[in-house]
């Protein structure tokens, strides 16, 4: 599976869950939101979002629903499930622990 560039391995799931925790979105919008929220730093190549989204769906963390967009087109909207919310909490906690540890190590080596 092609991995999105510039993303720490395994963090894409976390980001997707976080974005969907704010509001249900379709794939295209998720990509846009990811880019704008991270100030263009985080980008995923076009289309590589979908395998990731489908994986989350198969895990039962998000669920999909076909709805009309504001432009009156049919699109698949993803929303967080109860399981997904729990998963987001664990992954967030993990990430914070990990990043705190990494920053600590980096600061140590600079000192």
């Amino acid at each position, binding site marked *: 599976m092609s991995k999105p560039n510039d993303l720490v391995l395994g963090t894409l799931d976390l980001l997707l869950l976080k974005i969907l925790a704010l509001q249900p979105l379709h794939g295209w919008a998720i990509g846009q939101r990811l880019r704008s929220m991270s100030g263009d730093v985080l980008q995923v*190549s076009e289309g590589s979002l979908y395998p990731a989204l489908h994986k989350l769906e198969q895990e*039962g963390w998000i669920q999909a629903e076909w709805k009309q967009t504001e432009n009156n087109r049919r699109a698949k909207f993803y929303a967080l499930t109860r399981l997904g919310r729990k998963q987001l909490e664990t992954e967030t906690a993990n990430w914070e622990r990990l990043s705190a540890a990494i920053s600590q190590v980096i600061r140590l080596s600079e000192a």
Partner: protein
Amino acid sequence: MRIEHWWFTAPLRLRSLFRRRQVEQELDEELQFHLEHLVEEGIAQGLAPAEARRRALLAMGGIEQRKEEVRDTRRVSWLTDFVADFRYALRSLRRTPALTGFVVVTLALGIGMTSTPFSMLDGLVFRPYPVPHPRNVVSLVSTSHDNPYDFWSYREYLDLRAQAKSYDGVVAHTTTVPIGFSRARGATPQVRGGMLVSANFFSVLGVEPHVGRGFRADEDVAPGRDAVTVLGPDFWKREFASDPAVVGKKVRVNGTEFTVVGVAPESFPSIQQWQRPDVYLPLAMAHVFSTDPQKSFFADRDDRELLVKARLAPAATLARARTEIAGLARDFARENPALYRDRSAAVRTQREMQTRGDRQEWKFIAIGQLLGLAVLLVACTNVAGLLLSRARTRTREIAIRLALGSGRSRLVRLLLTESLVLAVLGAAGGIAIAYFAIGLINTFQIPTDIPVVPPFQFDLRVLIASLVVASSSALLCGLAPALQSTRGDLVNGLKSSDVDAPGRKRLWGRNALVVAQVATSLMLITACFVMARDFRQAALGTTGFAKDHLLMVRFDSRLVQYDAVRTKEFYDLLERRAAAAAGVTSVALTESPPLSLDAFEALSFVPEGFQMPRDRESFTSAMDTVDEGYFATMGVPILRGRGFLRADTAEAPRVAIVNERLAERYWPGQDAVGKRIRLDHRGGPPVEIVGVARTIKYRAPTERPTDFVYLPLAQHRRERLVLLLRTTGDPLRLADPVRDIARTLAPDMPVVEMRTYENLVRYHTVEGPGIAIQTIGTMGAVGVLLAMAGLYGLVSYNVNRRTRELGIRMAIGAGRGAVLRLVIGKGLCLVLIGTAIGLVLAFGIERVLSTAIFGSGGVDVAVYLVAVPSMLAVTMLAAYVPALRASRIAPTLALRYD
């Protein structure tokens, strides 16, 4: 958490599997939606629509690849792939119905011929006792010079139970013996199977009665006090229509009233392999049972009638138990040196008991199993060969698949799925064959007094074994072709249709297959010939006595509790009245007539004037107790001396008659008549030998000559006797008159067994061997057919591969004979190698068969003079046909042949 997880995901999986089309459509729509956005974005940036679309597609990295990645996330791809492979396999197999049919039939034969003997071997050797934790249950056996699996006496059992520390419980039981059973006083007793068991029998073995209870510990303490019985499950169903209210009812066993206290569960038909007791009685009720009348069951330490089993304690090991029992045996010998000379004891596992060296059935079936596996091997090699040829014709298809990016493992999976489909079809056929074969074997009647239930069943164990065999043969015959055909290099595969890669290595495997087939089928044929020959000899050979016009009727006066006086009176009158019946020329009484499946009593004796070996106190021989009419009625000639006379009464001097073989062994070159033997031991009562009888066949027509002693009935009274009647007409016409005579003499005396001698002899020489010969013969025939097909396939494959070469040879002047020689030479070479290996195997199997089963020994050249040339002829024919076809092909055609 897990359950909640499945709650969410299970519907998704199901949806991916069963609403595949909708899922796919949604995926497409979703990706299209994204693509359109990208295109719009491009147009907004000022690109031409076509260019914007092109860039968008590039950015997406290929819609189809994305789809495939998404599909992989669904977690069901292995299944959908398998289903696709399965469908594809079915389709491609249906395209070649002849090949598919041949392969399926071949596999079915191979699997059927493995599963059938397995079900028998399982019943005889592998199936554990039908109790919880059967592995902990061991047998304790008394061992002596002549019998390493001897029984125990009641007193010995009590000592073992009290002194052995390695066990959680020690139980004793008798074999299943005939008893007279009736539901009410006055009704004629029916002959049923009964077993005496210790009170702890059910509890130690862990058998919970289906209704009621097992025996209580105090129920085998006081002899004769507790007349209680537990019924066997089959008997309960047949006799009492599974009525649970049977508990508390009274039934009569051998004339004594018993109270039914329980019914054994269906899961526990018997602790014995072949026989199922209808009633269980506590040991303390032994006096109503058919115990040895010469000895006292409760007092004599050498009245050995009990089998002892014990459940190993969790802390105990087998090794410790063995040391312990050897010590106990030494203690016994210290207390009773006279009784325990030459005697020790051993602990044997169930497996050891079931693979006893002195038993023939399991050896025979083990050989059958090996032969069956040989057939399976031949079948598998054949199928492998066929699939290999088939794979070659698909070289191009496979090359295209590889070129299109299919992984090798994926292709191997596809090809293996094909052989799996074949194996599943073959397994279905094989299971059907085994099912019917086992049914057929179970219809076989064994002439015994209480019905024998063969332990052969088509159960779950056999089914699982068949499936394991089927799937491993799928792997066996599918893997090699799959690996080989996906290995081929792409360029060559795509370029031409069927160019053979250079080198001999590719053919090596196929040649080995043919050699193996020729060898195993030669072995099978030889086995078949040897068995047919030996059984035929047995059937044609003389049994030594006149077996026609002879009826045997067995009675047992213990079943109705007769004392010695009434027993003698009954048999005297019975014999006298039977002799007077119309059509009877002579009558006799005997304890165990020859060739009946009853065991003979063993006699310990010391021949006078014979130098005993230092390590032996006495010799043993099989014996029979007969009356004065026996030798005339059976037609066994007395060679020297005389037969028994009316004058040999209980008060007269003791006499015996021995057979020729025994006389020759102990008094070689002398006349045994007038010599004396002492019964039991050196100081035992002396008995004069008054006659020497011809050695006949005692146990089986295939046996080697064995020692035998006859003692007169008047001097050794017996309760269980067979009335023999020689008749002028059909012996069965006397069945009703004899029954009537017995009924008038003793209304409640059951007829234990009644059959003609011809029926017995037919069982020994026709029906029993018939099954064996048919089984092995079928295996041999199947093996040969398969080997022929394999050889034919190989030679024609070789010919096809070399058609162009042959064309060139013929174009430049090679004659048809030369071509024929060229093509057939290789086949001949393989056949010869196979024959050589097969001969070695065949010698081996002949030796095993001869020594293990027939006791004849030696190699019979005649067998090979038939087997080898017929094998050669058959295999040469298989090679010749395709070779001839090759030599007839026109050179012009062959050159164009692609």
